[in-house]
């Protein structure tokens, strides 16, 4: 309950003037309407579901979808971009089949069966599964390389000052006490 509320709150907190939506529309000639939230909304929703806010920031708190924008729009080749977008369409088609609506329109609990379907190893070679896999990688990378996660969550030292090849690994305390 707490998780789905947090997820819903995170969704509504996403700025409506998100640049990516406009850029995606312009660059990719995608029609973005309330009825068809389009690629950016799907990416945002998947990012939020994959890495929700808990006692640590979520993917949306650190703008992980912006990294997806950069890669899809400026790094991928034409073919990769076309395949990726087709895959997003396939994900939304699966969402309609499994849960009755596009993924971004679903509330947190309704998303569960869609996520289960996407995570199914049988999906690995389908367009939906391949794109889901790529998107997972992008969101994880965008999240963990963000400044806030590096500083607050991973507590990465830019200047460690020493190398220890056998340091103790302590379990993180939920209050956020520094580990190690």
């Amino acid at each position, binding site marked *: 309950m707490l998780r789905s509320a947090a997820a819903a709150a995170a969704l509504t907190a996403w700025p409506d003037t998100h640049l990516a939506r406009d850029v995606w529309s312009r660059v990719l000639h995608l029609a973005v309407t309330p009825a068809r939230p389009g690629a950016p909304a799907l990416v945002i929703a998947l990012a939020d579901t994959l*890495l929700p806010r*808990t006692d640590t920031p979520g993917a949306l708190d650190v703008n992980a979808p912006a990294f997806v924008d950069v890669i899809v729009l400026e790094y991928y080749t034409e073919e990769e971009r076309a395949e990726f977008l087709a895959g997003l369409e396939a994900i939304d088609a699966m969402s309609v089949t499994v849960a009755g609506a596009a993924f971004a329109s679903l509330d947190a609990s309704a998303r569960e069966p869609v996520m289960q379907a996407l995570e199914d190893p049988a999906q690995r070679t389908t367009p939906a599964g391949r794109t889901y896999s790529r998107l997972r990688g992008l969101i994880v990378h965008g999240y963990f390389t963000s400044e806030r996660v*590096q500083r607050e969550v*991973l507590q990465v030292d*830019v200047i*460690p000052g020493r190398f220890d090849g056998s340091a103790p690994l302590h379990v993180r305390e939920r209050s956020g006490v520094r580990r190690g």
Partner: protein
Amino acid sequence: MVVRPCMCVSDRACVVAESRQVYDAIVVGSGISGGWAAKELTERGLRTLVLEAGGPIDPARDFVEHVQPHEMKFRGWGDRNAMLREQPIQRECYACDEVGRKFFVNDHDNPYTNPADAPFRWFRGRQVGGRSIMWGRQVYRWSDLDFEANARDGHGIDWPIRYADIAPWYAHVERFIGVTGAAEGLAQLPDGEFLPPMAMTVVEREARERLLRSFGGSRVMTIGRAAILTQSHNGRAACHYCGPCERGCVTHSYFNSIGSTLPAAERTGRLTLRPHSVVAEVLTHADTGRARGVRVIDAITQEEYEFEARIVFLCASTIESVRLLLNSSSSGGLANSSGTLGRYVMDHHYGSGASGVMPGHLDKRTIGRRPNGIYVARFRNVSDASPDFLRGYGMQGGSGRAGWNRGGSLPGYGAQFKDALIDELGPWTINIGGWGEMLPAAENHIALDPTVKDAWGIPAARISVRWGENERAMQRDIVASAAESLEAAGATNVRPYGRMQPPGHCIHEMGGARMGRSAATSVLNGWNQAWDIPNLFITDGACMTSSACQNPSITYMALTARAAARAVDLLNRREL
């Protein structure tokens, strides 16, 4: 005709390069060997002009080792489209990444060619410091097993020197630059004068012990020997383990020319360093044939200059030095009465090895990012002869826990998935790969391309190097022995891989102006001195008569220091 002052070595401008002044020495190149030539020649009293094709480096402005992923547009993935456009070849190099690519050449300004069936990767930079900025920093002494190899099996010609000749110079270099390592007492990998070793990880220590036991002490996994400081040394600070040395180091904690040899040269007051100086030709006196100096094209203005000196050191890197000599004479290249100029080019072959998972130790992690790995000393053709191939290989590798980087392959989503990536690091993984010796062969050569020229109108190099059967046989053995070693080390999920990279990819290209015992069969004598032109010395990788399997840069440094001392001695005795 006065040129801009250089500002690379310190805040003070270097003395401007005057082409009317006759220098005692000219050094072409400011990288691994050029910086050493500059230091040794100036410290021994010579007014020295160092000519560097590329631009100056200011550590504070240009070094990028502390740039964090979130400060990179592509978060470390790199601007793929820009690199495809500007650096289609350089981008294949591991160090030519999102921020490191600034130290690599533009491939369109700096073309080279190769036959279609002989792919070659030529990775390099053009700036003060050359590849000493981006290099891997691994340093291993050669032994007489290496110096005697050609004489023993008949491939190539005999080296004109032995370990006893170079050992004092290895020590001289190590004392100045600072080398971290652990003494192992191995004949085939002589110990150096080491600063304290870096630590192995808990699984590397376990792997080492198991490997020693399993193979009766013949396979020794040691901590890497590297030109990195583990304590402060000669005014440079110890490493602070931030990770990517190949992007530069503002504390000068690893060796490059910028932080070490060039400042030493500058302190003598006898250094003139002229960047943006493309050396197009070595000039000789028409009557004596001795070197007179060099012709330079200013990289920015395209104006031409001539600089003169009593001696010339070529330290432009293997392919550039050979190319320069080929471009310096219309009849087969300068210093080439032997006909061997450009021939017997080698590289180390690599790309094969194995990876695995080391069980346990899940309560341990690393602190700091160690810029060094482990090294398994050569164990083939050391005491027992391999039935399958001549010579041998060393192995390099490392270990670690992937942490969040394993997220792509970890199933799941939501809070538990996120926590797993934050709180758990995944298993310890270990990997080792082989770096193997290449036999010298006459057909592996560098020539001038008949039509392609670089951005300054200088004929490009045409490089024809192909792996031979000995290299392929060695690669097969590397795959097998890497897997065998990891299994003996206690690894599970051992996965061998055989991905032999093309020549050049290892970035240890050498040969083309080899040292030898006779002017009939070599370009250089035992002092790196050209047989045909006694006041011309070549001390970069071009001079190498065989390749061994050890990373070669420290050997280039030692040969350079030794040759510089000899050159000054000859000058002082009026024999040059």
